[in-house]
C-alpha cells in the first residue's frame, strides 16, 4: 500500500514538473504562429521564415512549425532547407499525408530520390519513435500487471499468464520497430545543403568521383573520417563527401 502511494506520488511529481516546464516560454508561440502565417499569406516569406525560425530556436518543437517553416523555405526557393524541415516534421508524424506529399514534392523538385528503405524500415515508419516507445512502455506495464494479477489471483492464474503473452509480444514488436529509429542516432540522416556535391570513392581530395548528389537530397551517414569527410549512402550507393556540404536532420 505504502509502495503504491510512493509510486503515485513520484508520478504526480514528475508529471507536474514536466507540465510546468512545458508551460514556460510557450506564451508567445500562438501570436508568433499567427504572425508567421499572415506573413506567408502576404508573400513576405523572409518574415515568415524568420518568425518560424525564431520559434524553433526558442525551443518550440511542434510538427506544425517545422512543416510550415519547410513550406516557407520551399516557396522561398530554398529546397534543401525545405527538405530538412519536412524530414524533421516527418520524424514526429511519419503518417501525416501533408508532410509526406510535400516531402515527396520537394524531393522531386530538387531532383533527389527518396531515401531507400527496406520492408522492415517501412514497417517501422508506420509509427514515430515516440509512439513506438509509448507502445513498448504501455505493453511493458500491462504485461507486468498481468503477471502480478496472475500471481495474486489463483483461479485466474492460467488465463492471466496467457493474456500476459499478448503485451509481451506487443512489447517485442514495439522494440523491434524502434530499432530502425534508434539507428538514426548511430547513422543519422543528412540533407545536402550545397550544390556541386559529388560523392567520391575515397576520403581524399582528388579521389575518383562516384556520383553527383543534388542539393536537397537526403543521405544517410555510414562512416566518418577525422579529416572532415563522411561516408554516406544515397540511392543505394555509398561514397565520401565533405561534411560542410550537408546538414544533419535529427537534432
Amino acid at each position, binding site marked *: 500500500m505504502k509502495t503504491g502511494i510512493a509510486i503515485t506520488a513520484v508520478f504526480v511529481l514528475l508529471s507536474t514538473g514536466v507540465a510546468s516546464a512545458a508551460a514556460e516560454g*510557450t506564451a508567445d508561440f500562438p501570436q508568433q504562429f499567427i504572425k508567421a502565417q499572415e506573413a506567408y499569406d502576404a508573400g513576405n516569406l523572409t518574415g515568415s521564415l524568420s518568425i518560424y525560425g525564431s520559434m524553433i530556436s526558442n525551443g518550440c518543437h511542434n510538427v506544425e512549425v517545422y512543416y510550415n517553416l519547410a513550406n516557407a523555405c520551399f516557396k522561398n526557393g530554398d529546397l534543401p532547407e525545405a527538405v530538412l524541415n519536412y524530414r524533421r516534421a516527418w520524424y514526429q508524424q511519419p503518417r501525416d499525408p501533408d508532410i509526406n506529399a510535400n516531402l515527396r514534392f520537394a524531393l522531386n*523538385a530538387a531532383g533527389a530520390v527518396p531515401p531507400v528503405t527496406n520492408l522492415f524500415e517501412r514497417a517501422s515508419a508506420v509509427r514515430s519513435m515516440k509512439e513506438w516507445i509509448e507502445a513498448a512502455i504501455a505493453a511493458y*506495464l500491462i504485461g507486468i500487471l498481468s503477471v502480478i494479477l496472475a500471481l495474486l489471483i489463483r483461479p485466474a492464474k492460467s488465463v492471466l499468464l496467457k493474456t500476459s503473452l499478448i503485451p509481451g509480444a506487443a512489447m517485442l514488436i514495439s522494440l523491434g520497430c524502434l530499432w530502425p529509429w534508434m539507428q538514426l542516432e548511430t547513422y543519422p540522416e543528412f540533407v545536402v545543403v550545397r550544390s556541386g556535391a559529388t560523392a567520391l570513392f575515397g576520403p581524399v581530395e582528388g579521389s575518383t568521383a562516384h556520383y*553527383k548528389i543534388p542539393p*536537397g537530397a537526403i543521405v544517410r551517414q555510414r562512416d566518418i573520417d577525422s579529416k572532415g569527410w563522411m561516408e554516406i549512402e544515397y540511392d543505394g550507393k555509398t561514397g565520401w563527401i565533405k561534411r560542410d556540404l550537408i546538414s544533419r536532420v535529427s*537534432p
Partner: protein
Amino acid sequence: MKFEIRNLKFLTPIIGSLFLAASAFAADVQLKMEPQLISLMDRAVLKIEFIDTNGDAPAIPDIDGLDIRYQGKSSQTQMINWKTTSKVIHSYIVTPAKTGDFTIGPIECKYKGGKKELTAQLRVIKPDGDKEAQTISDMLFSRIRTDKEKPFVHEPFTLFLSIYAKEGLQLAGNISFRGGIPETGIDGEPEWKMTGQSREVINGTIYNVHRLQGRVETLTAGTFSFSPSIQVNVVVPREKRRSHGFDDAFFGDFFGRQETRPVVLSCNTQEVDVQPIPLERRPPSYTGGIGKFEFEVEVSPTEVKAGEPVTVKMRISGEGNLAQITAPSIQENPDIKLYEVRSVPSESNREIRFEQVVIPRSDNVKEIPAISFSYFNALTADYRTITKGPFPVTVTAAESQGAQVIAVIPTDAENKTKILGRDIVYLKSMPKRWITANGTAWYFSKRFLALLVLPILLLAVVFMATLKRDALEVDVARARRHKAPKAARKNIQQVEHAIRKKDEPAFYEALWKTLTEYFGNRLNLAAGEVSLSAVLSRLPGETKQEAETLTMLFDRIEQMRYGVGEPADHSKQEMKEMLAQTTRILKRCERMKL
C-alpha cells in the same frame, strides 16, 4: 652452461627491443611515377609507398594540364632473407590534358615517426599519328545548343549535343553524363537520345560527329546553365604501353591488343534564360498549360433522371507541358452536384484526359455549363482560351420522392485515377498544445528510466510473497514456526492485562498459554504434547541457563495453576519480573535453532 642460458633469457627482450627499434628506423615513404614518359592519349600511375609504416593518402595539389584522381589503397608484405618488409601503397591515376613537362608536388607525406616532402616528374608528349595535337580537347570535344534560348517556365525545350571526335579516333562503349546539368528547378533529368552521326570539317580537320538531343522542362524561372560533362571511352593501341596489372580497370585487359581510356570532354556553356509566365491578363480558367493545345469535351448521357450521374469527359491534346496541366473546372451551380475531377490514363503521350461526374439535382437543369480551358501560348506569348458548351441535357423528375442513394460505380478508368500534385499542400493550422524541446526527451530521462525498474521490483516482491504463501500452505511446521512469535506477542498482551488487574489466576493462565502456544507452534507439537521435558529435549546442549530458567518458569506456573505449592500473594512487581523472564527466554529461544 646453465649460467649462459640463463643470461640469454635476460638478453631476449633487449635483443627484441633492438630489432623493433631497427625496424622503426627503417620506416620510409617514397613517391613513384610509373611511367615517367607518356603520350597525350596515355595515363600514368602515381604511387605513394609507406615502407614499414603507415600513413593516410595525402592531398595532391592541382596541376594545370593534369587530372589526378585517387584510385585506392593496397598493401604488400615481402620476406627476403628472413627480413620482412611491408608497404602501404596509395595509388593515383594521372591523366594528361596537354603536353609538356610537369612537376607533381611537393607533397607532404606524414607517417609514424616523421614527415617527408616528395616530388615526381612526368613528361607528356604528342600522341603517335597526330603531331599537331597539343591538348586532348583538340581531338575530342563536345558542343551544346538549344532551340529556345528564352523559353517560359514549364515550356519544354530541346538541347542538342554534338560530340566531335577527330578522324581516326575510335570511340567505344556508352557515352556517360557526369554532371553539368542544373540539379534544381528542372523536372527530371533530360533523357538523351542519339539522333545521328555525320562528318564535319573544322579548320581543315575532319571530325566524326555524334549527335544527341534531350527535352528539358523547368519548374522555375531564372537562368539555367548547361555545360554537360561527358565521358567517352577512346580506343588506344596498347603495344607501346606497359601494363599495370591483369585486372587494371583503367588500362584494359592484359591480353587485348587495344584498350579503352575514359576521357571527359570539354564543352561550351549554353545559358537558357527561362521567363516566368506573365501574371497580367491571366484568365481565371488558366490551369497551368504552356504550349499549343486543343480542347474537346464530351457529355454523356444527355437524358437522365434527377439524381442520376452525367459524365463529362475532357481531352486536352497538343504540344507543351501536358503533365503540368490541371483539369478545367465546371462553374458551380446549386442545381448541379459536382464530384471530384479525375485524371484518366491516356494511350497517347500527346494528350491528357479528365473525367468529372455531375449530378443534376432537379429537372430544372437544362444544360451542363460551358467549360473553358486557358493556356499560355509560348509562341505568341499570350493567353488563349477555348470554351466548349454549354451542353444541353434532358433531366426528368425522379420517380420516387423518397430518399435516394446516388452511387457512382467506379469504372476501370476511375480505378486507375492518379493523384494530381502540382504544388505543396498549404500550411498547417495552429496546434492545440505547444511542445517544447527541453533537452532530453522524457522517455530518455534518468528519472523515468529509474522508474521503469519499479514495476519489475514490485513483481519480484509479489513473486516472493506468493512463493512464501505457497510454501507455508504446504509446510505446516514452517507455518507454525512462522506463527509462533506472533501468537506469543498476543498472549503477552493478555498477561500484561492480568498484571494491570492484579488477577493472579488469570496471570498464570495467560503466562502458561504464552509458553505452551509458543513452544507448540515453534516445535510443531499438539496442544497436549507441550511439556517441560518436551521443550528441554529440543534445546541445544550448551543452553544450560535457558534450561534452568524454563524449568523454573514451568514449575512455578504449574504450582500456581494447580495449587500444588504454597498459596502466595504475589505483588505486581513480582508478576512483572516473571513476565520479563518469560519474554527474555522466548526472545532467546527465537534466536536459537530448536
